[in-house]
C-alpha cells in the first residue's frame, strides 16, 4: 500500500536516495518541478517507462496538490 508522506518526509527520503517522480503532463513539468524529479506522466506510467525506475530504491510520486 502506498505511503502518504509530507514535505519533511520527502526531504528525508531524497537525502537517502529516493527517486522523485512528477506524474503531471510534460508541459506542467517543464514549467516547474521539484529539484531532481523526473517526469513520467500518469498516462505513460506503464511497463516500459516504469523500467526507468530502480525497484530497489524508494519512489516518491507527486502532482500539483490534492487532486
Amino acid at each position, binding site marked *: *500500500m*502506498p*505511503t*502518504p*508522506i*509530507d*514535505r519533511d*518526509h*520527502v526531504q528525508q*527520503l531524497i537525502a537517502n536516495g*529516493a527517486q522523485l*517522480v*512528477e*506524474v*503531471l503532463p510534460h508541459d506542467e*513539468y*517543464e*514549467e*516547474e*518541478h*521539484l*529539484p531532481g524529479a523526473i517526469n513520467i506522466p*500518469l498516462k505513460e*506510467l*506503464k*511497463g516500459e517507462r*516504469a523500467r526507468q*525506475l530502480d*525497484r530497489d*530504491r*524508494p*519512489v*516518491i*510520486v*507527486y*502532482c*500539483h*496538490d*490534492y*487532486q
Partner: protein
Amino acid sequence: MSPRAAWRLEALGFFDVNDYVAGKADWGAAGLPLEGKAAAIQTAADIADRDPPVCQLDEPLELVRARVLAAGWTACVVINEERVVLGLLGRSAITSTDELDIESAMAEGPSTVRPNVPAEKLLERLTRRHLAQAIVTTSDGRLVGVVRAASE
C-alpha cells in the same frame, strides 16, 4: 492524480512507493526551490527583506518601538519562538506613545502571502490596496520575510 500513480507503481511491482499528496504547490508554498521555466520568475521570497524587525509577546513595547524606528522601519512582526507569525505592529502601533503591551497593540492574524507568489503581482496588490507591506510566510505560518511597498 498522484494516488493513482502510486497504486499503479505498486501494481507494477514496486515495493516502496510514497505519495507526496500535497505536491509541488506545498513545496513552493514552503519557500523551497523549484526548477523549470517558472523558476526564472521573481517571487515574493526573492524580494522579501529576510531580516525585518521582529518581537515576541513578552517584550516591552517601548523598547520594541525604539528598536524598530532606529532600524528605519514602521512595522514589526510579532512571532513566537518557532517564528510563527502571531501579529503585526503596524505604523500606528509603532509611532504611538500609548502605554500598551504588545498583545494589546498588535493586529492579530495579519494577512500573509506565500513565498512563491509572483513578485510583480504582489507589488501591484500592495499599490492597489495602499498597503505598506506584505508578510511572507510558509504554508505553516513561519516568517520568511517582509516585502515593503515601493513608497515605504
